């Protein structure tokens, strides 16, 4: 039988705990205020009827039933969000890595190319989207005029439900600077000796990438994928602005912005959350959607983190 700890030892443990808590407190306060409280409030309001004026009323699962079975826009919004998560994140990572490799390999004009590829990332998302919509305007945009002049029948880009999401992906690839910098740093960090050893072993370009570069940058790729997934689950501004501008509808005081033009193809879950919560003041349904988004983001992130742990373990 173990003896109870002496009072002096207990006091020491308590002091240690308090010290640890003291060091953790800034994070704990931030976590509680900006994550814990909003999360609890979101769960609470998902069971309430609340128009942000009157007191909330408990309505059980009615908000959940409404969102999951009676709201026709939930399906397209979720599909679009997941489509963007899969396609946009994958292409951004591949493209970012490709550009990163390119700017680490080139011999002359290094500074110019690194700056040139990074600069678009600094453009405000709204301004960049406005520029893309004008450039890709099917009637008056220069892109279609040039393609038309060389005999290519160009699509209607943001005005075509089949092309609106790919156009958004193109916009995101244009602003690839953030990933390029991260991959560039990771690539420059791979020891040169390993490449030399691989060359001595007869490895070609693909062999060096497969057996030297890839294992070294895997954690960075995972980081890019996880943050990319989380960011894309919250995709809002570019999709809203592109849809709004391409629709040609004049919006001003008195008009409600209907996101998703054309044909709900650019409608994402965050846009629907805003629409429900702050245009219709249907707080309960907006909270349900937010929770669905949270669970999916959490699930995908957990899966990727586990996968990453597996990859790292395999490397060890």
């Amino acid at each position, binding site marked *: 039988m173990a003896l109870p700890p002496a009072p002096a030892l207990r006091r020491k443990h308590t002091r240690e705990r308090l010290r640890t808590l003291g060091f953790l407190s800034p994070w704990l306060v931030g976590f509680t205020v900006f994550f814990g*409280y909003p999360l*609890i*409030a979101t769960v*609470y*309001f998902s069971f309430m*009827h*609340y*128009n*942000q*004026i*009157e*007191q*909330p*009323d408990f*309505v059980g699962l*009615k*908000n959940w039933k*409404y969102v999951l079975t*009676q*709201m*026709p826009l939930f399906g397209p919004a979720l599909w679009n969000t997941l489509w963007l998560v899969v396609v946009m994140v994958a292409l951004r990572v591949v493209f970012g890595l490709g550009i990163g490799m390119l700017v680490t390999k080139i011999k002359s004009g290094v500074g110019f190319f690194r700056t040139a590829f990074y600069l678009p990332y600094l453009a405000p998302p709204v301004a960049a989207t406005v520029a893309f919509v004008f450039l890709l*305007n*099917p*009637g*008056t945009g220069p892109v279609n005029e040039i393609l038309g002049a060389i005999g290519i029948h160009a699509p*209607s880009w943001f*005005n075509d439900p089949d092309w609106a999401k790919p156009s958004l992906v193109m916009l995101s690839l244009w602003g690839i600077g953030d990933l390029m910098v991260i991959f560039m740093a990771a690539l420059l960090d791979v020891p040169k000796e390993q490449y030399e050893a691989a060359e001595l072993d007869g490895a070609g370009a693909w062999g060096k990438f497969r057996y030297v570069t890839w294992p070294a940058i895997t954690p960075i790729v995972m980081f890019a994928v996880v943050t990319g997934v989380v960011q894309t689950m919250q995709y809002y501004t570019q999709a809203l602005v592109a849809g709004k501008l*391409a*629709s*040609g*509808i*004049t919006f*001003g*005081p*008195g*008009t*409600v912005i*209907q996101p998703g*033009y054309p*044909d*709900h193809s650019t409608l994402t879950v965050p846009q629907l959350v805003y629409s429900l919560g*702050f*245009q*219709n*003041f*249907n707080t*309960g*349904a907006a909270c349900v959607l937010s929770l669905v988004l949270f669970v999916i983001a959490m699930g995908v992130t957990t899966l990727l983190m586990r996968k990453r742990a597996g990859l790292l373990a395999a490397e060890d």
Partner: protein
Amino acid sequence: MPLPRMRICLSVALAGAGLLVSGCANPSVGSDRDDPTKPVTLKFWHGWSDRAEVKAVNDSIARFEKLHPNIKVKSVGNVTDETMNQSLRAGGDDAPDVVSSFTTNNVGQYCSSGTWADLDPFMKKTGVQKEKVFPKTFLDYTQYEGKQCALPLLADSFGLYYNKDAFEEAGIKRPPRTMSEFRRDAAKLTDRHQDGSYKRVGFMPNFRLYENSPDRFFGQWGPKYFDSKGKAALAKDPRSKQFYETQLALIKEQGGYAALEKFRSQFGEEMSSQSAFLTQRVAMHLDGEWRGLMLKDDKAKFHWGTAPLPVPDDQEDTYGRGYLTGTVAGIAHSSRHQNAAWEFVKFLTVDTDQVVRFANDIHNVPSTFAALKSPKLHADPAFRTFIDIAQDPHSTAMPPSNNGGQYVTTFQDFSYDVEAGKVPDLDKGLRRLDAQIDADNLQSEN
């Protein structure tokens, strides 16, 4: 930690969190016990942003302050309904006292949620008999289930602008009065380049063009959105199907949806000198009364005229009608100066001289009986058309709903699908639309 202690801690934490989140859901409440003769500064939020319009608002405020030296009004322009709605819900000292909205769509929500104060007690106190002041259609769209939480602050009526030169060129003597004539004229007025691309369309039917939203065009059929029990009734009303059939015919007879949509994407911005009617890319155009002033200011290079929009062939006796909407004004529920705020709202909406001067300044339709008949009202023949539409007994407005404009949005979404040819079975589609509107309204009422 022993299990019972942990359970207690968890329960206390959850109860605390519950109290905390529910406690945050309590907006500030205003007061109607203020003395309107005492000095006070009111905050007035409105949507006008054009320089001339803002000047007209400020001139109105100056006139009011001259009549009520104790009340100062601080105005904030270019406020959207979303911003206003969110501010009123958040409350606080910076929230407005007097509010206005460019749309009538949200009146039902303002009234049912109590965001805007009920104006009937104020009218009773100050002897305003609303039925004698405002036309019925205007009163209808500013109340919900008997609660008058808003009053009309000028109105907008929608009619047809037409290019007289293009009409003459096509040998058309007068603007169309029925939908058959409209379809025939639209096709006749459509002009193409040698390569087949459009030079001009007779009428751009696509619902995303400027003011050409489906609810406005549907107004010509005199639709009934809800039955007496408040249930959506579009599927039961044969006019709904007639409306969509006309729309599809207009699209087909002028070249098809895709071609028209591509042509529409080349149009300039609605309020700019590149707008489609001004640049003669459309020969007939659905628009509000304000367009006339803009055409004059931009010195349109062609002769143009105005007329009521055509009506369905089987409702020819209703020719002259149009869709009505307008700016509405009210008092924020959170205002602590509601009596003073009422003095300002009353001045803006009831005072004949003010209503006429404001209508003249911003070229809107006045919203009181007296102002509509005032000899001081600037009324050139083009503008007179819209004043007549506003007074036409068959003119319609959107019915208010406790769900705000969500049913309008759902209706618009459905209409976009129909015009794009994505609803093969209209009857089935309309039934689905009704079910969706009812589900949304029920969710809002829960």
